[in-house]
């Protein structure tokens, strides 16, 4: 059946398949991990399932794709693990301590990156790090709105804003293109020249 679909749609399907190679590899990996044992039968059935899923349930392609920089990636992952542990401990302490939590805040931060993929990674990691949770993301203006658990005063708010921008810088340095790393230096609010990597 899949052969008929390919013959019918022609080169655009092949083009799409090449773009979705990382997704295919990931699906095959998940299939093999689910079976728990390595065998050729698992690999081949995994490829068949991955092809079936991507052909029958197509997703819009991620524009541009990711470039990995090993050193920056390690730095991002290290910060992420430390943040994950400290945020779990911090929030756990705030739930059990007798005083309960103090006031919260909702802040908006002007971001500098203009890529769907990077913003997704950033939002996921921001929700897992201490005290912040993404409420809203304005894609056109590149502003992100976060709910901050436990702030005492305005200085805490500014500190959280700086933490968000630092996290953005780590994500972009780990996964971004050279243009996007250069865009980190521009002051927030300026228009970035050239095409952003957004899904049409």
């Amino acid at each position: 059946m899949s052969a008929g679909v390919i013959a019918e749609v022609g080169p655009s399907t092949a083009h799409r398949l090449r773009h979705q190679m990382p997704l295919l590899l990931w699906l095959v990996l998940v299939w093999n991990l689910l079976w728990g044992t390595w065998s050729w039968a698992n690999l081949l059935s995994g490829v068949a399932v991955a092809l079936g899923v991507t052909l029958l349930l197509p997703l819009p392609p991620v524009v541009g794709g990711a470039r990995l920089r090993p050193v920056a990636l390690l730095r991002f992952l290290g910060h992420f693990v430390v943040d994950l542990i400290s945020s779990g401990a911090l929030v756990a302490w705030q739930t059990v301590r007798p005083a309960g939590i103090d006031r919260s805040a909702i802040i908006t931060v002007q971001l500098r990156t203009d890529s769907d993929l990077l913003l997704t990674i950033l939002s996921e990691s921001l929700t897992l790090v201490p005290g912040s949770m993404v409420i809203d993301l304005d894609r056109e203006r590149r502003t992100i709105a976060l709910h901050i658990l436990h702030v005492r005063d305005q200085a805490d708010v500014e500190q959280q804003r700086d933490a968000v921008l630092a996290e953005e810088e780590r994500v972009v340095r780990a996964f971004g293109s050279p243009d996007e790393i250069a865009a980190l230096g521009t002051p927030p609010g300026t228009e970035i020249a050239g095409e952003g990597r957004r899904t049409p």
Partner: protein
Amino acid sequence: MSDVQSVTDVVAVVLLLLGAFLCLTAGLGLVRFPDVLTRMHAGTKPQVLGVLLIMIGAAFRLQGWSATWMLLLVAVFQMLTAPVSAHMISRVAYRRRHVRRDRLLVDELRTGEAADRLYRGDEPADAPPEEPATALLENRRDEGTLPSS
């Protein structure tokens, strides 16, 4: 041989208990925190870390690669999906005005002109306003149909 066995058992027990305690604090947070947004914090962070610790502890105890791969998948999907569900719920809660504004220090999503003058506490958007006459006046002012006399 049995020494190694007992050491891994101790490590596994410590990790499992720590993870279980973190999951307990997630439940405590759901009861003790004042509104939806703060409760979602409790539902994501200690809970994700707790599940991760339980997965690591179980990987120590089970000793078999097929179980380890499965636990790794559980951990990865937990970290991918928990932030998304927390975001969806808190976004809906914010748009439906389920926010304790008296507990907020600043709200930069609603400032200046867009500030919410009618709803101050934790009320759904379709609840009747506390002062219907004022609400009607504000509504007309927003729409620009109020005569400027």
